């Protein structure tokens, strides 16, 4: 072999070794997805999960991973479930494209043969549940979509294994409208022109929240003067702000899921604000929203049908452990993923077996009080919310409304969970 080519190959081999040693060393130091286990006497129970550890949703993915790790380590520290340790098998779904989600679920079900899957949310609804149904692997998640309801109704033979630990997204828009009704009724806020500017997030979640909210508000005599879709990653808002400043609507609703997009909007809005309430959804839940936005996001109202009960003793104890471990406030994704793992663990322990149907049968009747409220599934395998679908605050997940006050997320609605009250934003 000519010397030049041989030399090149030697260089490649050396570089490849450096690359892989460096990668593996970094991977070792960054804690691999599977948790370290105490030497078991019985085989571990394999808990599968997926999360967007890279890509545009990585901040949520990191929170999900932390929630999973905390829950699994706590369970194992107490001796595991039924004398067996829990082994977490986590796969990255990156930008959540369909092929990556399906590959991850196929990996978990067909190759890793996990006993149960707990995951947060994705932007694809259906194919992953079909894979779980093919392999008989139960799945618990918070996709928060109407498509889950449709899947349950269209898959009578497989519905036993699929659970959604919150309500479908249609209740977001209904809850938004009810919240405004409460503010007006209690004299905390008076609209001037009953105009709404709607900035829809490009995903299904964002679109549907706005669509249902729009219908609710139109029925209350409001008008939607601006209705635009915002793509993820938008940083320049001059065109839409020009329209907003011309219309001066009473309410601006923005359902973009990406926190940095929302922060960019608020910064530009606050340069010349209108007297409009600014309401958003889950995009403001990430801790980075206040970190990046600082004073620019004071007064922002955000809502989630599934979020931490700040000020609640169950949540505060858990959040204290989270802060000790990770040095910062926990995000919503960590809270509800932790809750779901504990819910699953409770059901499995009470069922007395890891046999999937027995676990799911127990899950149907388990009442679990977690960081986000009470989880109790209805006949359609989703968890109703309070006050949207149940009047009993002890049996439903509260539909939470937060307002950022003094750089803190203050829960302002619903009672009896609120710790503060609504204040007019500083730009009014």
């Amino acid at each position, binding site marked *: 072999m000519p010397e030049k*080519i041989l030399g*090149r190959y030697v260089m490649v081999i050396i570089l490849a070794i450096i690359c892989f040693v460096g990668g593996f060393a970094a991977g070792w130091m*960054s804690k691999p997805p599977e948790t370290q286990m105490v030497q078991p006497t019985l085989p571990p129970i394999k808990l599968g999960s997926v999360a967007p550890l890279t890509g545009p949703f990585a901040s949520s993915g990191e929170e999900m991973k932390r929630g999973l790790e905390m829950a699994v380590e706590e369970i194992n520290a107490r001796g595991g479930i039924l004398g067996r340790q829990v082994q977490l098998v986590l*796969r990255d779904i990156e930008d959540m494209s*369909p092929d990556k989600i399906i*590959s991850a679920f196929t990996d978990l079900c067909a190759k890793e043969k996990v006993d149960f899957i707990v995951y947060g949310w994705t932007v694809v609804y*259906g194919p992953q549940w079909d894979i779980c149904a093919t392999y008989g692997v139960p799945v618990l998640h918070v996709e928060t979509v109407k498509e889950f309801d449709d899947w349950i109704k269209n898959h009578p033979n497989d519905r036993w294994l699929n659970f959604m630990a919150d309500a479908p997204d249609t209740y977001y828009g209904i809850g938004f409208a009810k919240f405004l009704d409460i503010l007006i009724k209690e004299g905390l806020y008076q609209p001037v022109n009953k105009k709404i500017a709607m900035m829809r997030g490009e995903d299904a979640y964002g679109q549907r929240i706005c669509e249902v909210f729009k219908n609710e508000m139109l029925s209350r005599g409001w008008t939607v003067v601006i209705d635009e879709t915002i793509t993820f990653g938008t940083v320049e808002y001059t065109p839409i702000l020009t329209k907003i400043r011309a219309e001066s609507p009473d309410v601006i609703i923005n359902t973009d899921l990406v926190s940095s997009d929302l922060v960019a909007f608020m910064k530009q809005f606050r340069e010349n604000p209108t007297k409009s309430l600014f309401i958003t959804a889950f995009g403001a839940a990430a801790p980075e929203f206040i970190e990046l936005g600082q004073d620019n996001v004071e007064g922002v109202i955000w809502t989630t049908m599934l979020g931490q009960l700040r000020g609640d003793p169950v949540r505060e104890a858990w959040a204290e452990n989270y802060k000790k471990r990770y040095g910062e406030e926990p995000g919503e994704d960590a809270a509800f993923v932790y809750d779901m793992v504990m819910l699953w663990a409770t059901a499995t322990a009470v069922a007395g077996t890891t046999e999937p149907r027995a676990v799911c049968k127990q899950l149907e009747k388990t009442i679990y009080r977690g960081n986000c409220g009470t989880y109790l599934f209805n006949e359609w395998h989703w968890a109703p919310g309070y006050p949207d679908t149940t009047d009993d605050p002890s049996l439903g997940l509260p539909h939470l409304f937060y307002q950022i006050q003094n750089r803190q997320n203050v829960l302002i609605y619903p009672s009896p969970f609120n710790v503060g009250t609504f204040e007019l934003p500083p730009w009014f």
Partner: protein
Amino acid sequence: MKIESVRFSHLLEVIVLFIGIIFPLLSVTYYVHLVILSFLWSIVAVCWNLLLGYSGISSFGNLVFFGVGAYSSAWLTINMGVPPWLGIFIGGLLASFMSILMGALTFRLRGVYVALFTFASQEMLRYIVLLPEATKWTGGPIGLLGVPGFKLSNFNSLYLNYYLAFGILLITILSIHKLLNSRTGLALNAMAQSEIYAKTLGINIFKTRLIVFSIAAFFTGIAGSFFAYYLHVVTDEYLSFTTMVSIIFMILIGGLGTFYGPVAGAFIYTIFSEYLKGILSGAIRLIVISMAIMIITILFPSGILEAIRKPFRSALKPKVRSLFKSANDTKSKAKNI
């Protein structure tokens, strides 16, 4: 850039074909699934390489055809009951038709403007499918769910998809091989070297590009349709920038302007990325992948396949020559006797 002339090494191809046929029988579901994805991405990469590597067409909008194929065939099957076997063909034809419309505008431009125009077309299609007004056709951000898949009596659906994807890849490769060895292929070669010289030879640049563009679009559209039928869902993620970059990586890894390079690149990229997910977490994995791509593109600008073939050719050629030489010597000695 030197473009590889098309030659087949028959023995190696037969071996690969044999492995391809028996692979699903020896492997677990997950790996069969990964290979199916690799087949589909190979089709897209091979077609894109036909444009970028062989034709000098700096198209960065091939996912338009992928998306047109996927959305059209999925919609027809869900709403009009068109069987997937027919839907996949219609998806390819519609993608081809779209390419003629696009090409008519694109090929009036030159150089970087072709890249910008085609990329803008892809982005435009992505925003169109997300429009609230388009929801009844495209499903909006949710996409089209519950797309029925291929069925053949009691045949295992995973195996069915595997052999279908394999078959389509083979047909794609054979078709492109035939194209490149035809008069059109010679014209492409001339155009890629020098457009002015090609014109002086009487080659109709516009027409030749349009033919190649539509052939690449046809097979890319078929790959898109297949994706929809296999994954049972179509979303705007099929048109994303990330997907586009991944395919370009596949082509570069395998070798731009080489014949089998994009296939090798698609397999390496798809399987390597998935394999690392079980070992490395998050950003570390992406760093390793990026470093691997950097190393390959710097050290092997002709692609990894060429890097493997060269030393074998250098090592084997003298041996083969001496083998033939001794065989010829024996023949001529026998003649002289």
